[in-house]
């Protein structure tokens, strides 16, 4: 038998993680702040992340952008977003023609099954993106501290 008190406690616990997600519009707002509303079609960017993540606490994530990386045509910045993490911004990197290649790899935390987005800003002012839907078994970011 479930008492009213136990039910309320369970309901509060179930509702708590939702409060720790960014609001649905937070990622779009963060992207709009960078692009100023300019379109960011899919293409030229490759977001490399496993589709099935067993442990969201450390996920190898890489982004590669097709670019000659010359003085007149290069990638200025690459941003990665997770709409259902407590904060949608994951990492931003700034590079230039001296990078040789528009590519980086890091390790990130993924809080929930969601669609991760990579956004690249090119020297000509255009934006390109890629997205990958991931399934997370063990969520990160908000777990209890032992």
């Amino acid at each position: 038998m479930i008492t009213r008190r136990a039910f309320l406690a369970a309901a509060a616990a179930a509702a708590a993680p939702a409060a720790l997600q960014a609001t649905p519009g937070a990622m779009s707002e963060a992207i709009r702040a960078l692009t100023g509303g300019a379109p960011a079609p899919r293409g030229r960017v490759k977001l490399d992340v496993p589709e099935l993540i067993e442990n969201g606490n450390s996920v190898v994530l890489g982004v590669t952008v097709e670019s000659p990386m010359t003085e007149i045509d290069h990638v200025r910045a690459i941003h990665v977003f997770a709409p259902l993490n407590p904060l949608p911004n994951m990492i931003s990197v700034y590079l230039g023609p001296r990078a040789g290649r528009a590519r980086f790899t890091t390790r990130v935390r993924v809080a929930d099954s969601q669609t991760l987005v990579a956004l690249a800003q090119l020297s000509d002012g255009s934006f390109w993106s890629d997205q990958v839907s991931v399934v997370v078994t063990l969520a990160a970011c908000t777990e209890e501290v032992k």
Partner: protein
Amino acid sequence: MARAIVKVPARARRGEIIELRAIVAHVMETGFRRTETGALVPRDIIRQMVCRYNGVEVFRADFHPAVAANPLIVFTTLATESGRIEFRWTGDNGFAAAESAQITVE
């Protein structure tokens, strides 16, 4: 000073694209976690990593709480001249770390 490890090739040909790896020991506490008693654990993360090649910035990364503990970053740069490649990390609570490596370009 926090423990940091960087990997830079010791020698490279001029114009070659070389891979740089940098990792630093840090908890990257998200600021969203709670203890058993419900107290919020304050955020403590590295905010930025900057890589300079003979004093010129060639790569910069802004970290958010979504970057995993002991942040690793792998990227590339053009081997332009012999000298020193330096990595600097700065973060919350006055965190600062630096590590550098020598490269010979021929």
